[in-house]
């Protein structure tokens, strides 16, 4: 049995009377390539927010590498190896690409606590950031401001920041959202080339992407897990066709 990188047990969340996560039991093995799909409003992003600690669950628990982290803050969970990207870019728009990635690295290494020695003289932080940018072919954009960058490349910076945290679990919330199909393959190539030991959970609407990337798929409907299975099992599942895939084909 492979060790679990991430697990949720009966994780539930209500917004007032509205249940947005209902007793979700979820398992992510080390090095997993897992996709989370479901119709709009199924609670996919909410689920991510519960895992990262951006939201507090109404009940249930979150476990990272076997340890219960439900009571821990977002920051403490990041320290334990959890990183995410956002569906809508959450970048430091007025800062350079390099500064964006340095921000994550400085927090991870603890350099960000220091009030002396300029960040510009911290070669170890800058070199690591440049190496990540190189990996994502963002090297030439290092000194450009985020707001001057095309959207597709901004999406890459989202991933670069997450990598700066050296995650063991990486949560990708629609990494190709808003990117023209012609450019989205760059993003997917990058995601596929990431180190195998990182456990990855991807939220995605594009079924081609899901079936290309994932070895396991969870279908979420109205805050509940409908079914978990391999891509071929999900494709063959009648209920999934009904609530999700079927609807999608009918409407185009």
């Amino acid at each position, binding site marked *: 049995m492979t060790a679990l990188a991430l697990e949720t047990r009966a994780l539930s969340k209500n917004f007032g009377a509205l249940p947005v996560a209902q007793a979700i039991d979820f398992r992510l093995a080390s090095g997993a390539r897992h996709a989370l799909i479901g119709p709009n409003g199924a609670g996919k992003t909410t689920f991510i927010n519960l895992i990262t600690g*951006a939201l507090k669950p109404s009940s249930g628990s979150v476990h990272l590498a076997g340890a219960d982290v439900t009571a821990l803050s977002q920051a403490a969970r990041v320290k334990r190896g959890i990183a*995410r990207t956002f569906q809508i870019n959450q970048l430091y728009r007025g800062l350079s690409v390099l500064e964006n990635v340095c921000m994550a690295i400085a927090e991870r290494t603890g350099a960000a606590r220091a009030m002396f020695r300029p960040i510009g003289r911290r070669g170890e932080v*800058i070199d690591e950031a440049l190496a990540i940018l190189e990996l994502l072919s963002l090297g030439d954009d290092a000194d450009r401001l985020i707001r001057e960058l095309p959207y597709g490349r901004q999406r890459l910076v989202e991933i670069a920041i997450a990598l700066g945290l050296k995650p063991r679990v990486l949560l990708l919330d629609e990494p190709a959202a808003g990117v023209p199909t012609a450019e989205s393959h760059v993003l997917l190539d990058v995601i596929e080339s990431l180190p195998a030991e990182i456990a990855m959970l991807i939220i995605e609407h594009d079924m081609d992407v899901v079936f290309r990337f994932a070895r396991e798929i969870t279908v979420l409907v109205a805050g509940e897990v409908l079914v978990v299975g391999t891509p071929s099992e999900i494709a063959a599942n009648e209920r999934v066709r009904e609530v999700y895939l079927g609807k999608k084909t009918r409407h185009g």
Partner: protein
Amino acid sequence: MIGIAERGAFLRHRHRLSWAESVPWIAAVAAFFLFPSYETLGAQVLIMVLFALSLDLILGYAGIISLGHAAFFGIGAYTAGILSAQGWGEPISGLVLAAIVAGIAGFISGWAILRTTGLTLLMLTLCFAELLREIANEQEHYTGGDDGLRGIRMDPIFGVFEFDLFGETAYLYCLAVLFIMFVVARAIVHSPFGQSLTGIRENIRRMHAVGAPVHLKLVTIYAISAAMAGVAGALLAQTTEYVGLTVLSFIRSGDVLIVIILGGFGRLYGAFIGAPLYMVLQDQLAKQSPEYWLFGIGLVLVVVVMFAPRGVLGLLEDLGARFRRDSR
């Protein structure tokens, strides 16, 4: 195509000193010799620069808007003032104590109010300052209440430099303290900690997501800023040998906000432009029209916010950039 070795040059070089940074210091020293009769006013300008610099740390870098920064200025002024009025006239220790007391007040109040944002935070900063003003008003025995605190007598600095009637010592004393505080502020904003404050201002959600202890960082810079404002207040108490309730007033909080908006925030040097500009403007407008000078200030502020949202310093930077482009 940028050469690989040059990548990151922007970040690697940003903290380096540029020749332009010497200009305000040269100007401040030159003013000492050129306008000997204005040294008392000059000291007040320097104090305002320091006060605005402290506000810039939280407003320009961490994005904390305060309408009550006078709280810490006032705490510093009363700490140094009361200390001296009670018989301890040594100035340097007075400054240090003022910084500590104001810093602690900043830490405690910051811890409580910096979980809020926007309008709520704005109102809470205002309330905190007003609360302190009322306390100072009530505690007449210590503060002199409405009449102000009298009986402040300062010893010579280092036992050598006596405060003179013409404000020469006061001016140089304020300039030296400002310089030290500036060096500290500059080190902080270029440090990784300072960079992470910029991150909070730019995108607080992302800052949480990279695992930053956002609240602790905000409280820390708020306390540092408060300590610096406290030093400014203490300088005023020591150089004028008087503390009135206005040190805690809403008007003072507003003044410093106008100064930093006029000068330009988020670049440290905005304070150096804003403070003299505002005080000279105030002085001149009041001479022209003792009744309507505030109207003039308001007008200038509207024009600056509309046409130079990054302040006069931003305007100068844009002009400088255009000049460099043209001359290429």
